């Protein structure tokens, strides 16, 4: 297997409902926040930002931008700075892997990530009594003091590989490996697939003239692509994102 898994997110279809955020947290056993958590200290491997075009009245437009680990293909910023080799780019899948057991919590990778897509685990993972029975048995919980991020639901990839191996196949069935956020999106705004396969719907969507990548000028070649028919949205691509940006509430 030599795939390059990635996504194309159609921003014109995103309604900002947050289903991707909740589904991601449930799938990956992301713990509930303690009362003192804030948008700066919370754990949101998938985070939807709300952005306005800054105009008033009938010209006002808004768009919701789901931001997750961009799965940078080249010069992956977080890999180079990790003193523990806790971040690796999986050569077989292109997924940027975070290995919490190796992480010592220095947070260099968080500083290096231009997308603010990494999160520090400030608290021990805790659920209300009995609720641990509802945790996903395929994903281990992470300790306090390590950095977390999206790994494209790697446990689901493992499940698909096990299923393929049980059937005596070398390649997985693409329908068996769909990340939780993709599955949850009510408008089908997120297309996931193998970008190295020219016939894959995700690959074709990434080649669309309306497709773009965030901060493409950095040359890290993110495997998370975006798409919009609105020029002002495409122009946002080089502005980057900020976790602490104060978005207006709806």
């Amino acid at each position, binding site marked *: 297997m030599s795939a390059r898994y990635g996504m194309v997110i159609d921003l*014109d*279809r995103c*309604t*900002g*409902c*947050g*289903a991707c*955020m*909740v*589904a991601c*947290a*449930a799938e990956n*056993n*992301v713990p*509930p*926040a303690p009362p003192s958590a*804030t*948008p700066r*200290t*919370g*754990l*949101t491997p998938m*985070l*939807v930002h*709300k952005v306005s075009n800054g105009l008033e*009245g*009938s010209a*006002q*437009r808004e768009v919701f931008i789901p931001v997750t680990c961009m799965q940078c293909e080249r010069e992956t910023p977080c890999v180079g700075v990790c003193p523990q080799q806790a971040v690796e780019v999986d050569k077989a899948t292109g997924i940027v892997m975070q290995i919490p*057991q*190796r992480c010592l919590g220095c947070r260099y990778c968080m500083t290096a990530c231009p997308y603010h897509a990494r999160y520090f685990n400030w608290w*021990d*993972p*805790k*659920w*209300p*009594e*009995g*609720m*641990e029975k*509802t*945790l*996903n*048995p395929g994903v*281990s*919980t992470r*300790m306090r003091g390590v950095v977390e991020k999206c790994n494209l639901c790697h446990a689901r990839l493992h499940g698909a590989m096990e299923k393929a191996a049980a059937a005596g196949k070398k390649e997985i069935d693409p329908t068996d490996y769909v990340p*939780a956020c993709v*599955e*949850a*999106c*009510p*408008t089908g*705004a997120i297309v996931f697939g193998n970008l190295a396969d020219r016939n894959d719907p995700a690959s074709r969507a990434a080649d669309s003239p309306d497709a773009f990548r965030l901060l493409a000028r950095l040359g890290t070649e993110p495997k998370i692509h975006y798409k*919009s*028919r*609105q020029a002002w949205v495409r122009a946002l691509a080089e502005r980057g994102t900020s976790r602490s940006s*104060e978005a207006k*509430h*709806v």
Partner: protein
Amino acid sequence: MKVSRRDLLIGSAGVTAGIIFTPVPWKLLGDVSIWTQNFSWIPQLPRGPVEVKQSACTLCANGCGVRVRMAAGCPVGVAGVSGHPVSKGTLCPLTFAAHQLNWHPRRLREVRHRGRPASWSDAQAAFAKACGEGQVAIFDAQPERAASSVFAAFIQKHNGCYRPVLGPESQALAPYASWSGVPVNALGYDLENTRTIVSFGAPLLDGWGTPGRFTRLWSDRAAGASDPQLRLIQMESSFSRTAALAWRRVAVREGSDAALAAGVARVLLEEGLVAAQAPMPVLPLAEAAAQTGLSVEEIRSLVRTMVEKRPVLAIAAEESPSVAALNVLLGAVGTPGGIVAKKNHVPARVPAEAPKTSPRAVLIDASVPWEFDPQTDAEIFRFAAWDGGGGKADWLLPAPGFLEYLTDVPAPPTSGVDTYAIAVNLAASPPEIKSAAQFLQKIDSSMPEVDQLIRAHCEEIFHSHQGAVYGEQPLPVSTIESAQKIEEQLRKGAVWVGNPSRPGNLRCVLKDWPAERTLPRPTNWAAAWPVPVLPPIATKLYQESNLREAPAGRQA
């Protein structure tokens, strides 16, 4: 050979240097890391056989299809069922964590009488006594279920009254029910065949109706297009999610929906843009413009845009006779792309009854939103799975939680076609939990069982020879050999979908342009969530991000 101190130091240094080139320190590091993942306070993952089952969500009346991953018999994940005829594979955001709700700290696990622990036998005795002393009222927010039939049977025998509690979407259909005589539960929207939707503040893209139905339709036919196949015009005072994503947004003053509907109707009639006949609204156009904050020319331009692509359907956020009258004028009642009778004039299974006298006791089913206040001095027996806090019930009775009980799921309130599904009890409920139907059966053993009623409804479907059962493959009912087979399929997560409604089976006659009162509109996104508590990870949406504002009155 004599070993000197120098040899010992050299040897030690050599061993230390050598160890670095062996796997020992790395293995130790790995083992320590794994050890630190297994402290007693770190949650242990469930172990056991993993299986996937399908069912229907019962948290609200929309009955979305859910695919539930189970580990050791406990739900550990919830997702939508792709290709589901009702929910189109989608769920509302919080349902993805709904399996955690059964373990919420505010889960009710014991009977409480005025805040103190009590027993089921006390509650049953008190309710039986109340039944003997006067009338009882039963409130139900998900009518047409088998449990609703139990309620109906009980009130018939014990001199009571049945009161359905309508959600905002059903309330919006109430005027058509009163004008046509078709029950509210038999009405719905034919969204799939409409070309222009004029929304009077309805949160169509933020939790309206069955979450997947309109969002999928909008995504396929409208999202991002300058001239979409489906036009969504949102009239709203605030810049909501739906307003932000609509094809056109018309900013109007809050509470001016009735004036806007009257103004639009006046322009339609004056300019001869509609074939239907309807009384002219009393409100002059200039006055409508003044009330809405728009100019007369803006209203005229809006109306011309509205009727460019037909059929046109107006949707109100809650009960609004003016908006309903506008649909009558637009010819959007009983026609494709408009308001339709999904049951082809079949009356609701349980008729609503007005109370004859002030009730002695009130029973509130767990389907009724926690915020609902029955406005009575009667003794209140409230069933709930979670304690929302601040309730004024005399008796708080613990009800089954998510996927903990067997129930049937009738057609969602906004559906344009009749549907039927069964939600089986996938999760084991605590022993001290009872549903309202079970409670009434304990008081009067002659009440029918939910199980029997579901079987009877499957028989009805089988003998009707109508529609198809959507499981792994859609199967027309006429090709299924028995009612047992239908029930078997439905219990595995399939859905029965009836035949599409016949055009012209719904007629509304309007004698006068209706007067309207302004109702408060729910503004908080969590108001659409039917459970008084939120899954703990819902904090991702507001506390740990700026995506939404913190919900009022609901605890994660």
